[in-house]
Structures are given as structure tokens and as C-alpha cells.
């Protein structure tokens, strides 16, 4: 009961294969409901007016990216060990922060009981990307273990052939992930898992005109996560779960000046360079769940501590905070008339105080093929670390404010759900209200004065049989980013069609992805001036064909990504004036990497 499983969309491992995706950034680029583009080698992901920092991402039920109040290079998060990724709109969950409007859940692949298996795959594409992976799994009902190592190299993307400056840097990632489950007793189990990745990238600069010099930025991103979970059945109906997590990451950035005439290079330490960041997080959660025929409930506590591991003190202020939370949730069903879910979370943050976060959902005819549902949720999202802690010289001249309150997120979701044997249709309206957004004043200070509203009208269909799995979705996002100042609302549509067809009486599986996004416009306020940002619409189509041989031991997949070769788009920023709009910047952004043909060879030993 604690987690709502009625996903709006499920991104499968077949979708990952069809689109040759190697990391979480690639998934979010294609995930229905999200909008993503890359500028200055950084991916910008959003859902309506919610940035990625306001969207909870969980892996196997535990937070994946701490409190998401820092830029986290999603290329460092591998997805080769995932079974599926779910998008949930306004879900009922025990996730406290960033959970109001949308949650993205990653599920690890499971290992077959009483089996050992190994797998190797290699992927190569026409852009000279190369990915190699080795996985070993073992299970004897008591012990289940899985370990995987991976190397993934992705070439740089250039705007023009003769450019040296990269639009997206070349990146190389090494992963070592393992997962171990010990079934101590029938009613007691221990699970330990760890994800470790090292990402290196080189953001190359253009040759400075008239010289043989360049300035490059090298990135060394290290992330290490250790998770532990112990689960025991207290009675027939009660389960107690203790989850723990230690997460450490460091995004090391170094700037180098190079002279290409003699290959001499020296590190540059000026003030105008990106600086390294890194954080440590400890997290613990204790949950008691009870499942009964009509009334279910769960209750628990959650503790977490987050600490900067690069700048442990700034101006004698410790750059860390702690959260103490308690939550209680219930679910009551009255025959087939209605189901009521509700509860509250009490969060105490060591910097900003305590907050009560209620939620509730009413579902009519919960056992029928046609169900109606209304949900309200309140959640919080923390201001970015640099806004809280970093002084103006580390934050583009903007003075930090450690007293910033968390951003207030409220969502209302109305949904109609039709569920049949092979068919699942859902449609609804999600309204998200975001308050206390940090805004930059004329004095370059930050205050919690911003408000925004976004609405998303959505419809999705999932039709699945033994031969076909097709999942179209359509959404219309309405965005008002400066609700506190203007009533300007902009709309952008998106259409996604994901599908796989198994050719009858063969081993052939054909996959396709089609995604169409309209022009995305939004406003924001800075220095008491309203700015309008417009990002061009873009399209993405990928197709693949896969065949398996030797009793499913060997599979070969060929595919094409970005068939329409929609790569560069523009991001324009205007300043709105009394009489019109003034163009401030027109930048090249990347919607997708260039069209590429790829193949994958996968060999499994069972």
C-alpha cells in the first residue's frame, strides 16, 4: 500500500534497447511527460514548471539523487541493470520530498531463483560509441547475488564538422554494481546493493581566434551508493522494513589551458571557471505496514543528513542539514463503492523548521473497469545548495540565503482509468501549484517570493498481448512561471508512441519510438524583470529489430536512433517590456544526438 503502482507510463528494457540508451539522462530525454534539452554540456530536464530538482527519482524504492537540490550529471547513472522505469503522476507514496506531482521509479532486474546466469553484451554505433558489459548472477533461494561491470564510451557531439568545441562532451564511464539478498528466514530477508560509477568527460573549447590555444574543462565524476534493507514479517498482516543508504558523490571539474602547437598544458585556477562540488548523504527509513481486507495502513520514520564534501564550511557556516520525518498513511475501501487513501507526513528540517504535508485520494468504483479518482498532495522541495550555502563568488554574483524556506509543492490530479485484460486507458488533469520559489532581487539576494502554476492534460493507452505492446500518450502542458507577477500562460503539446511487435512464429522483435514535442515557452523573474525562454519543438524517432538464436542465448539487435536527425534547436531568451519583447540571447541547444545506426550483440549463459 505504501507505494502506488498505477504508473502513467512504463519505460521498458526493450525501449532502452530500441533507443540505445546508456544512462539516466538518455531515459529522461525520452520519457513521456518530461522535457529535456542540453545546453553548455548540461541537460535541462523539466515537467511543466517543475525542474528536475522538484521531481523525486527512486531506485528500488530509495532516493537515487539525494534531495535533488544540486546539479547531478545523470550521465553518471547507468541503466543497464534496470528492468523498467515508471512515471507516476501525483502518486500516493511515503516519499516526502519532491513527490507531489511526479515520481520516477527505477526497478533493478531480478535474478531468477535457483539459477546462475552470465551475460555479455557489446554495443557499437556509427558515431563510434562503444559500450561493453559483463554480468554474473547466482541464486539458490537463500542467497541471491548479482554483479555487473560496464564500460561505456560516448563520443562528443559537434555543431559543425570543423569545430573543436564540443556541444556535448565525450564521456567515458566505468560501473561496478552489485546486489545481494540473503533470505535469512522465511519471514526475514536482508538486501544489500551498491552502485559505483566513475565518469570522465572532456568539454573541449574552440580554438581561440588568432592563436593555437584552447581552454578545456575536464570532469571526473565519482558516485558511490550503498543500500541496505532488512525486512521481517511481524505477523500475518504486519511487515517491518528498515532501509538505509549512504551516498557520496563528487563532481570534480578542472579547467586546462592548452597550446596545440606544442601540446603544452597547464591547469587554470581563475575565478571564472566552474568549480567542483560534492555531497555526502546518510539516510535511514523504518516502516511498519499492515495489510487487511478493508483497512490498510503504514507508518514510519525517516532520518537523513546531507553534507557538502567540497566546501564543508563557508564563512564559518557548516554546509549541511538534517531531516527528521514521520509519516502515517491509511487506505480504506468500502465494498466497490469507494476507496479512500490519506495521511500526512511531518518533516522537520534543521535549517528551516517543521512542515505538515497532508495527502488524500478518493477512488470511485475501485474494482470496476472504469474508475474515477481525485488526489491532493502536498510536498516540499529544497532550494538549490548554491542558493542556500554558496557565496556570491561561487554563484554568479548572487548572494546565498541560508534562511530560504523550502519550495512548497501542491498538486491536484483528476483521473479516469479504464482497465481491461489487454487494455489500460487513463486520462486526466494534473494541476501543480509551486510557491516560495527563490527569486533573485535587484540586490542579487534571494527571497522566497516566486509562484508558478502548471497544468497537464494527459491521456495514455497501453495495449499489450503476447505479440504486441503499444503505448501511445498525449499531453498538453500549460505553464505560468511567474504567477506572482503576471497571468501569462504558455502551452506546449507532446505526443509519444512506444511500441514493440513480436513477429509471430519467429524470434524477431521490432521496436519503435516516436516522440514529438512542441515549442516550450516559460517565463521567469530575475532582478524584478520578466524573462521569456523559448525552446524549439523537436521530434525523435528510433526503430530497432532484434533476433534471438540458440535458445535465447544469443541475440543480435540492429537499430537506428534519431531517424529524422533532429539534433540542434535554439533556446531564445527575451526580456519582456511594456511594449514588447527584447531578445537577450539565442543559444544553440541539443535536442538529441545525431542519427546513428547501431548494433548490439548479447550472449547469455544460463
Amino acid at each position: 500500500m505504501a507505494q502506488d503502482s498505477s504508473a502513467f507510463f512504463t519505460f521498458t528494457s526493450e525501449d532502452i534497447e530500441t533507443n540505445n540508451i546508456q544512462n539516466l539522462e538518455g531515459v529522461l530525454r525520452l520519457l513521456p511527460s518530461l522535457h529535456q534539452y542540453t545546453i553548455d554540456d548540461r541537460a535541462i530536464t523539466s515537467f511543466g514548471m517543475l525542474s528536475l530538482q522538484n521531481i523525486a527519482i527512486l531506485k528500488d524504492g530509495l532516493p537515487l539523487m539525494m534531495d535533488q537540490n544540486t546539479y547531478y550529471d545523470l550521465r553518471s547513472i547507468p541503466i543497464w541493470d534496470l528492468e523498467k522505469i515508471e512515471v507516476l503522476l501525483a502518486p500516493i507514496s511515503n516519499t516526502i520530498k519532491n513527490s507531489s506531482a511526479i515520481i520516477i521509479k527505477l526497478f533493478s532486474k531480478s535474478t531468477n531463483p535457483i539459477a546462475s546466469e552470465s551475460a555479455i553484451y557489446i554495443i557499437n554505433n556509427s558515431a563510434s560509441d562503444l559500450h561493453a558489459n559483463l554480468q554474473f548472477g547466482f541464486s539458490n533461494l537463500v542467497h541471491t547475488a548479482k554483479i555487473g561491470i560496464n564500460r561505456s564510451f560516448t563520443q562528443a557531439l559537434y555543431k559543425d564538422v570543423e569545430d573543436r568545441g564540443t556541444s556535448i562532451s565525450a564521456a567515458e564511464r566505468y560501473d561496478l554494481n552489485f546486489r545481494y539478498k540473503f533470505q535469512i528466514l522465511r519471514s526475514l530477508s536482508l538486501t544489500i546493493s551498491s552502485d559505483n560509477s566513475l565518469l570522465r568527460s572532456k568539454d573541449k573549447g574552440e580554438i581561440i581566434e588568432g592563436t593555437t590555444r584552447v581552454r578545456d574543462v575536464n570532469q571526473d565524476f565519482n558516485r558511490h551508493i550503498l543500500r541496505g534493507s532488512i525486512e521481517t514479517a511481524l505477523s500475518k498482516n504486519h511487515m517491518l522494513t528498515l532501509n538505509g543508504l549512504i551516498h557520496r558523490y563528487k563532481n570534480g571539474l578542472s579547467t586546462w589551458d592548452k597550446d596545440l602547437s606544442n601540446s603544452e598544458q597547464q591547469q587554470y585556477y581563475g575565478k571564472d571557471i566552474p568549480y567542483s562540488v560534492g555531497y555526502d548523504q546518510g539516510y535511514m527509513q523504518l516502516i511498519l505496514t499492515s495489510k487487511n481486507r478493508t483497512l490498510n495502513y503504514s507508518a514510519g520514520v525517516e532520518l537523513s543528513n546531507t553534507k557538502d564534501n567540497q566546501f564543508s564550511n563557508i564563512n564559518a557556516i557548516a554546509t549541511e542539514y538534517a531531516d527528521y520525518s514521520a509519516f502515517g498513511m491509511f487506505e480504506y475501501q468500502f465494498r466497490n463503492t469507494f476507496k479512500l487513501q490519506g495521511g500526512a507526513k511531518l518533516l522537520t528540517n534543521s535549517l528551516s523548521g517543521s512542515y505538515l504535508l497532508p495527502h488524500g485520494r478518493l477512488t470511485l468504483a475501485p474494482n470496476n473497469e472504469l474508475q474515477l479518482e481525485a488526489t491532493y498532495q502536498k510536498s516540499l522541495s529544497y532550494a538549490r545548495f548554491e542558493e542556500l550555502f554558496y557565496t556570491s563568488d561561487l554563484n554568479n554574483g548572487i548572494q546565498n540565503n541560508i534562511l530560504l524556506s523550502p519550495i512548497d509543492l501542491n498538486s491536484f490530479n483528476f483521473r479516469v482509468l479504464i482497465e481491461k485484460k489487454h487494455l489500460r486507458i487513463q486520462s486526466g488533469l494534473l494541476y501543480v501549484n509551486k510557491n516560495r520559489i527563490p527569486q533573485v532581487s535587484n540586490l542579487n539576494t534571494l527571497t522566497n517570493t516566486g509562484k508558478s502554476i502548471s497544468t497537464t492534460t494527459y491521456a495514455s493507452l497501453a495495449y499489450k498481448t503476447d505479440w504486441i505492446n503499444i503505448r501511445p500518450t498525449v499531453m498538453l502542458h500549460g505553464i505560468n512561471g511567474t504567477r506572482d507577477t503576471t497571468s501569462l500562460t504558455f502551452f506546449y503539446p507532446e505526443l509519444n508512441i512506444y511500441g514493440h511487435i513480436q513477429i509471430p512464429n519467429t524470434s524477431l522483435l521490432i521496436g519503435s519510438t516516436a516522440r514529438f514535442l512542441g515549442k516550450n515557452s516559460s517565463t521567469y523573474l530575475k532582478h524584478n524583470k520578466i524573462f521569456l525562454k523559448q525552446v524549439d519543438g523537436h521530434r525523435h524517432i528510433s526503430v530497432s529489430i532484434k533476433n534471438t538464436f540458440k535458445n535465447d542465448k544469443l541475440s543480435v539487435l540492429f537499430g537506428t536512433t534519431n531517424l529524422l536527425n533532429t539534433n540542434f534547436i535554439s533556446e531564445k531568451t527575451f526580456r519582456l517590456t511594456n511594449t514588447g519583447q527584447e531578445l537577450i540571447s539565442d543559444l544553440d541547444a541539443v535536442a538529441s544526438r545525431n542519427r546513428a545506426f547501431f548494433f548490439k550483440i548479447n550472449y547469455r549463459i544460463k
Partner: protein
Amino acid sequence: MKKLLYISILLLATSCFKKDAVLPKKSPDSFEINLSIKGNQASYINLTNLQNSYDGKTANWHLKFQNDELGWYIYLNTLQNVAIHNTTETDYDLVDQDYNILDLPWQLDIPASQGSQPAIGEWGDFNFPNPKSFKNVYLISWNDGITSFVYKLQILDASTDRYHLRYGTLDGAITKSVWITKDKEHRHSYFSFKSGSDIQIEPKVNDWNFCFTYLQDSIISHKNIPHATTINKSFGLYQGVIINQSNTQIFLDTSNSFDDIDFFFARDLEYNTIDEIINLFYTWNINSQSIEASENLTLITKDENRYYALKAEELEGSSIEDIRIKLKIKQL
């Protein structure tokens, strides 16, 4: 299976970052400056694009106004024999043809450690957004090449983007009032009493780094170097360089050879933002009675992220009144 395993392990260790191609080293450019007190009085260099450098020819201006938002200095053109005297009188009409102009201590702009100081001094209270003029009446001496004139000048006022002047002859035959607009595209605005209007002299603010010209300084400061005379006997005219402070910072190096100076050396220097230097690239050889290029001096400049080294390669001229400087310039 084993082969696949070996191949995979090999691929796990293979690196694929592309190496950079080695580029040929660029040879330094040459740039020639011809200066003459009677002819080409100013030469502007644009280091980003030497083709866009240009000669100011005879600079027929008399007053130069700062266009910076917070700058209110007014300079004089010593090359046109412009000099000034503050009467301390504030009634414009009281300064007339009866005013004794004989043996007046005519003042010139002087270089100082904090930059060129205008002879006109602080003509108002600049603490206000629109400076309040003290309304002093100044006598201005100038020369059109044939005749010498003495005008009176009063700065009436200024707003955030304009200077307001009144000037005329002492007998009142000519009395004019003009507004000089602060043109943000240029570092200075120029005014000519002869034409009675502002005139275009400088390139746009981002189109030049240095202006080679003649600047005045006290003769005592440059004992062994010849100079051209000015209206003030204590001051002489020397060859000098005006630095565009909007985009150019400098460092003078005398300990490294020009060839040894590279970007990595230049990058870590502490640069100055002075506005002018006198007698930069040459010394006076007493024995041969001629000017010689300073062999050990390299001027290193920084223009945002661009660095340049400049050195005088050749220098010709029997006096500083007519001089040719051949510069070697390399971008670092």
C-alpha cells in the same frame, strides 16, 4: 564464449578520447606606426584585427570629454597648443576683453600616478547623479595653426548623459552654448572651437587597444630625452601611448626575451590598468643623438581572454617630432 569474454575485457579497458591535432605555430605580425607632430598625430591599434587599426591624421580637436558613466574629466589637446587658466570668476560676462591675459600661468593636463589629470580640474560636484557645476569661467588658449585665440569657457551643467558648455570670445562677439553627448560607443567625445561642434576622432570603444600619439609631461621627469615645446615652458611633448582601459590591461616585461614569452607566462601576470605611458618603446642615445628601440622591453597586454606581446622591432627618426616605429606583435 571465452573469445567474447576476452573481447569484452579488452573493450572495458580501451580508451577512445580523441587526441588533438598539432597545429603549426603562428609567426608574429609586423605593424608600422608613423607619427608626426605636424602630420599624423595619432595612430590607433586594434590588436584583435590589425587591419582595422587606423591613423587619426591631424587631430583638429580642442577638448576631449570622458564618456564613462561615472567619468567627468575634460582633457585638452596640447598638440593644438590648447591650454587653460581658471579665472575663478563665476559671472561669464565679467570676464571680457579687459581681462589681463598677459603672462598668465597656462595649465596643461599632466600625467600622475593615478592617471592623466586634466588641467581644468574638478569643475563641479560629481557626487550628484547630474553633476553640479561650480560655474567657474576658464580662459582657453588655442591655435588653428596660423592664429592664436583666447576664448572663455564655462561649464554650465551636466546631466547623466550630456555636458553643457558656454564659450566665446572675450569681447562677446562670439557666444555659443553646446551640449556634448556622452556617446557610449566611444570612450571620449571630442569638441572643436573652430567648427563649434563635436567631431569624430576615436574608433569605437571595442575597436582599439592602443593609441600612439604625443603626450605632455614635465621636462624634469625626462631629462635626457628630447621633446617638442609647448605653451608651458616646464612641459614638453613626448611620444606616448594611450591605453584603452575599457578592454586593455598591460604588463611591462624586461627580463624575458620576446620569443620566450608565451601564454602560460602571460596568463599569471598581474596586469595594470593605467591610461597612458610616455616614452614607452625607445631610449635616447646621447652618443649618436638618435632614438633607439628598447631592446629588452616587451609590452604584454590582456584583452579579456586574449593576450598579446608587443615589442619595438625598429625605430627611426632623428627627433621625436617625426618617428617611425615598427612593432612585432604576437598573440599568445
